[in-house]
């Protein structure tokens, strides 16, 4: 027989022998569903470990995917921000172009409506360096047929006149300049009075007597007497009326947006602007300068 001297060894041997026989029994015994006990035990032992491992693996995979997704999202987010910035810029550019297109369409419409009047479109390329004066520069000059004192208008109304003309540019004195003046009249009463600038956004209608009834909102048109601006072009509307001595103090809001000019029309000759629908054959077609858009 095997002799093991130590008591601990005996206990260890006992444990091993009993355990081995328990396993032996487990191999033979079948439970109700014909599953061997050893298999049942093995599954019972392994299943929690498998569950733990599976859970851990699943969590790890999920965490890793989340991390990767987060990284990807961050990169995608940065790319989208860049794209958004580019698109905002592009949108702003397109909005500007759309607005420009609208303005040009208005110019073209106006131009088409007065096909018999020679005029040329020009783009405002700069303003006066002196703060007090109200002038702008346009991109047309002598080479395009421009001369001093030619009228500058927009479809909305009168802008001013050319005071200096260069080969490829010209300076426009705006109606709002202190030295500016224009022959005008009140549309309702046909009362004539020059309108001049004050160096402010509003214009001043100078010589209307106190007994003349002028209402706020009344339209002011060109009278044609200055031989620069054709008759009946919109100058503005009466913004305020105050009795004065000896004349009323009438403030006129310009019809043209003098502070937001971008494209203008230069009338190449002094000729009354009558819409073609109203007087289709007022002027021979040969007098019409070909339509053009600002460069």
């Amino acid at each position: 027989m095997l002799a093991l001297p130590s008591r601990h060894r005996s206990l260890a041997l006992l444990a091993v022998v009993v355990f081995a026989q328990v396993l032996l029994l487990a191999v033979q015994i079948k439970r109700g569903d014909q599953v061997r006990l050893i298999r049942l035990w093995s599954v019972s032992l392994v299943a929690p470990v498998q569950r733990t491992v599976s859970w851990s693996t699943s969590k790890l995979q999920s965490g890793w995917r989340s991390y990767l997704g987060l990284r990807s999202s961050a990169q995608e987010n940065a790319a989208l921000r860049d794209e958004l910035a580019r698109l905002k810029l592009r949108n702003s550019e397109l909005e500007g172009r759309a607005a420009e297109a609208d303005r040009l369409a208005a110019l073209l419409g106006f131009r088409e409506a007065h096909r018999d009047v020679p005029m040329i479109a020009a783009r405002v390329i700069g303003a006066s360096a002196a703060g007090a004066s109200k002038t702008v520069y346009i991109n047309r000059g002598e080479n395009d047929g421009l001369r001093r004192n030619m009228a500058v208008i927009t479809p909305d109304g009168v802008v001013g006149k050319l005071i200096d003309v260069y080969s490829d540019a010209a300076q426009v004195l705006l109606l709002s300049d202190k030295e500016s003046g224009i022959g005008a009249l009140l549309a309702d009463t046909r009362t004539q009075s020059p309108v001049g600038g004050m160096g402010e956004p509003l214009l001043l209608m100078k010589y209307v007597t106190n007994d003349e009834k002028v209402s706020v909102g009344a339209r002011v048109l060109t009278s044609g007497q200055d031989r620069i601006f054709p008759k009946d072009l919109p100058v503005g509307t009466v913004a305020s009326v105050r009795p004065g001595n000896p004349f009323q103090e009438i403030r006129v809001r310009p019809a043209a947006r003098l502070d937001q000019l971008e494209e203008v029309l230069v009338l190449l000759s002094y000729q009354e602007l009558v819409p073609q629908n109203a007087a289709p054959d007022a002027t021979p077609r040969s007098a019409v300068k070909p339509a053009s858009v600002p460069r």
Partner: protein
Amino acid sequence: MEIRTQADRPIEVHKFYSGAIFGAAALALVLQTFLPRKLPGADLLDLPLLVTLYFGLSRRNPSTGLLLGMAIGLLQDSLGHAPIGLFGISKTLVGFAASSIGSRIDVEHPASRFFLTGLFFYLQLIVLVVTRRLLLAQPETLFALNQLLAALVNAVLAVGLFALLDRLRKS
């Protein structure tokens, strides 16, 4: 009954003639399968238990005691129809416990042999019942009258059998 501990006198470890343990165990197993068919009431006997118990108490070595118990128990299982290991486990524990006790108290006296046999019969019974309940899911009565009767019969038989087996010792 006189049970003297190791503190009173040194415990003697007995040796046996070669083949005595093997022969006794084989004979016990054969008789265990043979007698119940020929002798009414012989099914109460557990000769393999008595052999395990005797050599465990005499040899007083826990390792050899448990290995002897395991061998006899497994052989007993193999001769029956129950799953192999039931008697193996119980007799392994009996062999280990008997060897451990044998090295601490005097087990030569007939009275102590009687009581120890009854005690170990119930130890084996408890282990069997617990094993059956846990592994086979078979509830079994622990304290029944026939079990008590079997314990008494085996205890009485042990007194005579152990005296007979004492003759196999080397003097």
